């Protein structure tokens, strides 16, 4: 029912104290490089390096990491199947025209395209997970301010952040109480019990909003939020590692340009 929030992993990961700028630079440029790549090899190379970093440097355990790929890969495989069937090409392996305007075929070109998109998703996901697992949101707020995001938007984001955690805690307890009294026992009961859960989540949010207004007022709220000053400074070794990675990845993008599976 409940998914674990990666934020909790990020708060204790092995790269917690490395400069946020470096981690963000690594993740974002990896995403851009994956998108710019025209061959399947470079995204795979990026995925390999970043996964290794997540598993060894950030010390995230393998199972947690592997499970994170399941849902997006399921989605990706379905979409890639569609791409393979509709993209068409010259070397046709299989073909079926069920409707006059719909032609399904598997071709060498379409397999290449599908595989390439799949690799790009794997590369992109690993880059996203690298940011998600090594950089807590609390550090990203500082970056957001530096990036000139309007203050009240950051304040809003911070309140949402704080609310998520204590609402989640409450909703979890309510869910447990429901299970203990045999809610979710049949399909119909499940829908009913679930809607009661969502409803109490709404009530809980409403209460939380009320209390938040009071708590802020009681502490002289005047439209300001404090920010935790500076993030950790950029250190030489991680900087060198980042540079090395970017050079190697860019080289891979250029070198494997247009590389296809078949």
């Amino acid at each position, binding site marked *: 029912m409940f998914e674990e929030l990666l934020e909790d992993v990020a708060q204790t990961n092995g790269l917690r104290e490395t400069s946020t700028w470096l981690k963000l630079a690594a993740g974002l440029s990896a995403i851009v490089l994956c998108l710019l790549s025209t061959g399947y090899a470079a995204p795979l190379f990026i995925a390999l390096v970043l996964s290794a970093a997540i598993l060894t440097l950030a010390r995230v355990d393998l199972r947690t990491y592997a499970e994170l790929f399941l849902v997006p890969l399921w989605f990706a495989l379905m979409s890639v199947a569609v791409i393979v069937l509709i993209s068409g090409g010259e070397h046709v392996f299989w073909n079926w025209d069920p409707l006059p305007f719909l032609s399904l075929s598997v071709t060498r070109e379409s397999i290449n395209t599908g595989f390439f998109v799949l690799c790009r998703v794997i590369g992109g996901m690993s880059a996203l997970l690298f940011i998600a697992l090594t950089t807590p949101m609390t550090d990203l707020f500082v970056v957001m301010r530096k990036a000139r995001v309007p203050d009240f938007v950051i304040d809003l984001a911070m309140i949402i952040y704080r609310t998520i955690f204590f609402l989640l805690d409450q909703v979890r307890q309510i869910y447990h109480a429901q299970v203990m009294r*045999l809610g979710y026992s049949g399909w119909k009961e499940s829908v009913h019990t679930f809607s009661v859960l969502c*409803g109490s989540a709404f009530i809980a949010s409403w209460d939380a909003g009320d209390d938040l207004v009071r708590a802020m007022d009681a502490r002289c709220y005047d439209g300001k939020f404090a920010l935790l000053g500076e993030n950790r400074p950029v250190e030489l070794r991680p900087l060198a590692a980042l540079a090395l990675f970017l050079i190697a990845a860019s080289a891979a993008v250029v070198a494997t340009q247009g590389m296809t599976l078949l």
Partner: protein
Amino acid sequence: MSSIVLEARDIRYRYPRGQEAIRGISFHFRRGEKIALVGPNGAGKSTLLQMFNGMIRPDSGMMLFDNRPMEYDRASLRELRRKVGFVLQNPDRQIIAPTVYQDVAFGPTNLGYSEAEVRESVTTALRHVGLAGFERRPPHQLSGGEKKRVAIAGVLAMDPDVLVFDEPTSGLDPSGSEDLMELLDELNHEGKTIVISTHDVELAYPWADRVILLADGQIIKEDIPDVAFGNTKFVRMAHLSVPTLLELSAELEKRGFFIPGRKPRSVLDMVHIIESQARGSCCHPAPGTITVCNVDTIAPGTTPLWVQAHPGIAVGAMGTRAKQCAAMEQVALEFTYGVIDKCILRALRGKDSLILTNGSMVGRVTERVEAYCKESGNVISVALLETTDRLS
């Protein structure tokens, strides 16, 4: 000795990527016992409790219910959760239906009871916790103590064998706590096994048959309350404090006072010890009597008349129904908590008292008084108030 109802054999549990929360625990609870799991926050109390009804499955080791290993398929879990009722610490998380009736009916409905059965089980459960007539009220208008009672009724409606309470009195004021502990005693008297988890040593000490001290996911001591709380080393390990009366008796013992084998659990016991020491004797020449009145069977109007006819008598009430009854008949109450002990203390000073209570609790008064008399050598007589006694 009664049969074992719940048992753990070397269970261990680790939260995903977290620390090991339960590190090799074994115990067994017998039918009809009152058990207190006592330990600081973070000792693993809640995790352990959630294994009692299969919400958490141990990583290794085995949980047994009724001498059969717990199974974790859907059907077995349903059966287990019906038999082991769980009352959360915060009733606001447990009561979520828009009316009291709907909330108490939640369990029975999910058990697939017919509408008539649901209605009956809800009515019985609400009467039990003293909330008859609250059916149509919305829970958010109730007081903390009332909410707690609704939560308990919601569990009672499924008629479980074992009742598990996480921090039962947290957030309740003294009179609310006292009422709740009386309710637990009443349920226990009707044969339910009661397990509470708490960090309130003053609460657990006089109440429990057996105390399990928990710290860092391990049992550090399991014994009767005097022994479990008497060892300062264990108490310190569990980040707890020694109950006041036990601490006092330990200090007196260090100063050469004689403390009998069974340590004082109540003010009554302590008075007895101090009097025996200071006076050499604690037998009273002409103790008063204690009269017990069952509010379920007595004719309305009897009690006020009887009280009028006995000036100087002190009246105490045990249980919600007795208190409601006293309020209805406008009988002024002297004692509303620790009633039996207070009446014994009065009797020892040669004064009479009347205890209003109901059902199974009548027997408890006699039992407790007899136990005290046997131990102390005093003779206090307990009488039952009948409707015909009106003016005697």
